[in-house]
């Protein structure tokens, strides 16, 4: 209906084609450097040995899992208030990425937990809140797929994401309060190894790489989302025939 909005999607779709593949290749190179830095150059921890190196994947993934949720809620808010199509697509496409980061954080945490704690899983504050975050993502994806009208679905999931944003600090802090009654072994363990600069630098670098990865995947997924929404439109047909 509104020509500027459709043009906006088309503009994004055509302009990001090259940027997207360039970003992916760039991220891959950065990632390889970061992995080499973290796995070979960074010094061995005197307490945990080499097993601590998993934190170079684990910690950025956990950070990104929270950050992606915030981006999803923020873009969802923009989509609800100003009804910008591209933000709707960005919001819902954040959900699978965030779920993916959450799963990576959980799985790498389990792998790290086995040699360090002697068990794969502890029902501790951080782990439980991360698991709940995964369920929030899954709920949003399930709700989105249940609606057949996708524009309405995105409005509903955006609202859910925003309400869930209020939920996140409550989960986080209340779980900590809940745990102070028992014990809190996890959080402080990380602080000792990451304090040293030679270990901290690769971690920050990996955080940057994960952000780049998030960006390139988000652009790819948004292109996919635009394609799915506009595949019956004229301009997409013309693009396909080219």
């Amino acid at each position, binding site marked *: 209906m509104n020509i500027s909005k459709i043009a906006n999607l088309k503009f994004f779709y055509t302009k990001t084609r090259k940027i997207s593949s360039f970003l992916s290749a760039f991220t891959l190179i950065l990632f390889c450097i970061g992995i080499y830095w973290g796995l070979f150059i960074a010094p061995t921890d005197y307490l945990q040995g080499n097993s601590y190196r998993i934190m170079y994947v684990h910690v950025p993934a956990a950070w990104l899992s929270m950050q992606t949720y915030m981006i999803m809620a923020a873009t969802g808010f923009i989509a609800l208030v100003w009804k910008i199509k591209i933000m709707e697509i960005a919001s819902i496409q954040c959900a699978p990425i965030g779920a993916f980061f959450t799963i990576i954080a959980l799985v790498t945490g389990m792998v790290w937990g086995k040699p360090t704690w002697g068990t794969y899983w502890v029902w501790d504050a951080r782990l439980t809140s991360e698991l709940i975050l995964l369920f929030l993502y899954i*709920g949003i994806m399930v709700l989105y797929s249940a609606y057949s009208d996708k524009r309405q679905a995105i409005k509903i999931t955006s609202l859910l994401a925003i309400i869930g944003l209020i939920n996140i600090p409550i989960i986080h802090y209340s779980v900590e309060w809940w745990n102070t009654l028992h014990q809190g072994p996890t959080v402080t363990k990380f602080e000792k190894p990451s304090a040293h600069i030679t270990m901290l630098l690769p971690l920050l670098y990996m955080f940057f790489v994960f952000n780049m990865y998030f960006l390139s995947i988000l652009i790819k997924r948004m292109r996919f989302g635009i394609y799915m929404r506009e595949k019956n439109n004229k301009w997409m047909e013309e693009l396909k025939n080219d």
Partner: protein
Amino acid sequence: MIKNLIKKELILYFRNLNNVFLPLIFFFLIISIFPLVLGPDKLLFDNIIPGVIWITAILTTLLSSNNFFRDDYNNGVIEMYLTSSTGVELILFLRIIACWLFTCLPIILFMPLVSLLFDISFEDSFVILITLLMGTPILISIGIFGSALTLGLARNNILTPIIVIPFYIPVLIFSASAIDSVSLGLPYDMQLFILMALLFLILPIMPYLLKYTLELSINN
């Protein structure tokens, strides 16, 4: 107008008394399943019975708020609500309260009987009762919010709980923490105050949120 609205809600619930008794029966049925599954170990039940009561209360609130707007949606009453000029928020608020009165309050009133059956000490059962009294209105209103979110879908029997349960967690944590504290002999007023704060934060916001959600769900 408020008087008429309250009267209408009461009549609706009293005409179909099943609505009042079924959650109660469901609650007692689930409670009595636990000893069957876990064995009648007195020591074990002393530890887990507050959790069992809370889980059962959650299941009951989930089931009773699951299809809260369904009939009204099919009748077209929701559209009438949204197009009417009078305060929809007030109607929604009264309906939340009515739903709580007829599904959760009976359970809370029967808590002394549950304490008797499982031999819970007076102070413990008092704290459980207080947490239920403040927690279940929050759970009910969040459940109703979930049912409003899924209103546009044909069948949503298991989808709504999946969406809603993560939002239950703050309430659960503080209730469990209060009950833990009282059984350990620690002060528990902080958790109860936080629960109360949550209650008085969520209840006034919820009608407005519900109205917005209904608008989103209905506009196709």
